[in-house]
């Protein structure tokens, strides 16, 4: 009896939300998993924000392999979920196939481009955000040596590194940048111990600010920097709070906005397909300042980084994109 009552209640609750908004959004994460404190978690945060605001439930799925990712996207589409958002470039080919099979469903892919009429492709200008934090790193460094630790050695991560180097050199022309990657397999996103070891190694060479673009491995970098009274820079989500006073800033990539906007635009019937490239100008990438790192950023640094930001928006400073020619200017 109690159970029937409960299910009736649940049914009532569901039907009211169905009335409030007639969409069934779905979200497919990258293989890194939902709670990586970084990229995927930002997507999750965007979906949660939408749920909180609109009361609309969403479904999500964490694939463990490329085959499963395609299956998940297709499963959502075939069950009438709309829009279907997939974060990570790994789903590019899966989305090409599935989006063509379901032309009436709206799809969004983050970090890659799929050229179809019902797909919105959201890409970020990570090099611009990395340039800004690189500038801050160059100014904050006392030794003139800064470090970069990437996750898996793929073009996307080199794009982060390349922007960072340009920023650091803009601050100090003779700045030295050490670059290391955690690894070559997917495990590289989730190896904080190795991240910490690499950070230690760079510190031994004299680096005193280290930028980690390495998913959960980056947490090891942040930890090691805090333990050794050096500074670090977080990535994707705002990670300033992880070690207040040691994390100089974070290169925030607003994956949450991409997910949130996808859900909201579909709800408001304002969905548009095509490529959206989010840079500094669109607030798609940014450096983070909050109470946790206020004391680390001096007035001069703030002025310089705001000027750089304005210059990028105005187009007077052009940050080279590694992906455009698979190389980085020396």
């Amino acid at each position, binding site marked *: 009896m109690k159970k029937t009552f409960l299910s009736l209640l649940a049914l009532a609750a569901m039907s009211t939300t169905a009335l409030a908004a007639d969409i069934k959004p779905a979200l497919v994460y990258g293989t890194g998993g939902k709670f990586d404190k970084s990229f995927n978690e930002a997507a999750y945060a965007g979906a949660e924000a939408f749920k909180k605001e609109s009361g609309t439930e969403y479904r999500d799925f964490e694939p*463990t392999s*490329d085959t499963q990712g395609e*299956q998940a996207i297709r499963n959502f589409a075939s069950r009438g979920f709309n829009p279907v958002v997939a974060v990570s470039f790994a789903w590019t*080919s899966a989305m090409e196939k599935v989006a063509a099979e379901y032309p009436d469903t709206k799809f969004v892919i983050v970090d890659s481009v799929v050229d179809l009429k019902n797909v919105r492709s959201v890409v970020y200008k990570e090099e611009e955000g990395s340039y800004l934090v690189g500038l801050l790193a160059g100014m904050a460094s006392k030794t003139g040596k800064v470090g970069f630790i990437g996750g*898996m050695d793929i073009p996307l991560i080199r794009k982060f590194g390349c922007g960072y180097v340009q920023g650091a050199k803009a601050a100090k022309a003779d700045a030295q940048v050490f670059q290391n990657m955690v690894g070559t*397999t997917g495990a590289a996103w989730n190896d904080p111990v190795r991240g910490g070891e690499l950070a230690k190694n760079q510190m031994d060479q004299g680096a005193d600010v280290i930028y980690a673009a390495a998913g959960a491995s980056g947490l090891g970098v942040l930890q090691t920097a805090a333990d050794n009274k050096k500074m670090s820079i977080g990535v994707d989500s705002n990670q300033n709070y992880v070690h207040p006073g040691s994390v100089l800033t974070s290169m925030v990539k607003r994956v949450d906005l991409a997910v949130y906007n996808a859900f909201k635009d579909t709800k408001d019937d304002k969905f548009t397909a095509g490529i959206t490239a989010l840079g500094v100008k669109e607030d798609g990438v940014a450096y983070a300042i909050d109470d946790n790192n206020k004391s680390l950023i001096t007035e001069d640094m703030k002025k310089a980084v705001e000027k750089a930001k304005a210059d990028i928006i105005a187009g007077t400073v052009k940050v080279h994109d590694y992906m455009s020619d698979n190389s980085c200017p020396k």
Partner: protein
Amino acid sequence: MTTASVSLPGWISYGVIPLLNLLLALFFSGLVVWWIGEDPFEALKFLVQGALGRGDAIGFTLFYATSFIFTGLSVAVAFHAGLFNIGSEGQAYVGGLGAALVALALDRYVPWYVTMPFAILGAAAFGAAWAFIPAWLQAKRGSHIVITTIMFNFIGAALMVYLLVHVLIVPGKMAPETRTFLPGGQLPKLDWLMALFGLKLGPAPFNVSFLIALVMCFLVWLLIWRTKLGYEMRTLGISPSAAVYAGIPYVRTVIIAMLISGGLAGMMSLNAVMGASARLQVEFVAGAGFVGIAVSLMGRSHPVGIVLAAILFGVLYQGGADLSFEMPNITRDMIVVIQGLVILFAGALEYMLRPALVRLYQPFGRT
């Protein structure tokens, strides 16, 4: 009296015992599911339906099973020679390079059935080459094969990422992968085979490499139990000193066994690279090499057992994905727990029930 020496008829050792082990595993998995607040019977229904309920579900199950058959055979062949090859993962990864190079070179000029034999050779040759150095180190230097093959998995991953990021990548593309093969470099799907049973394959990537896997099962059976080389490998596996005393060349047998093992692992890439995604991707192996170890253990290193175990793991992979899709409470980590329980009961604890069954059976068996 010990029960270990009592022999049981085949239908008990190969039929009843694995079935009971599987039921035990399912029982404990059910407990776990119940404990996190979901209905275990409902979960089982989703798992079985998700893996076997529809044509495309069966297609996905068999697609996964195909990869596991190759890697399972790879582990089994080495195991018969007393070598524990943990490197199937890396050998399959590098094997993919062989298959992809053949496909990239030929797909513009010839149809798939011309490409296929070269791709098989390419995949096997690259996989075997990757097994050669650990094999040589084991045979000549006594470096333990478990350690060296594990290390070669990482070296293989580094090599492949380097090649995909620097050499084989399509310029300007985000994902580190080769271009998509034309139909001449793809293995066709087996929709006609499914149609024979009145099933629709749909989008499942079940392809010709399944048939190649079955042929390899037969060839492995032939090799191990019907050839001189197989006999030498088995002797070496049971007792290396006796084998050497009997005049079986240790170095040669170890190296050949590992080359065959690596070649079989390399052929796994036919399924994933040429059958499913039609291009070489980073990390396409996705753990199939390690699953091969479990498959080989469960299948008692016999091709028939390997096929059955591979299908079981295919069911767990495909059904598990469907289960976590239908029941969001059951996360992907829960699926790994369930797979682990199956390996524990059906693989590691395989003899747990044997003494009890022997006691039960003895009164009838003595007549």
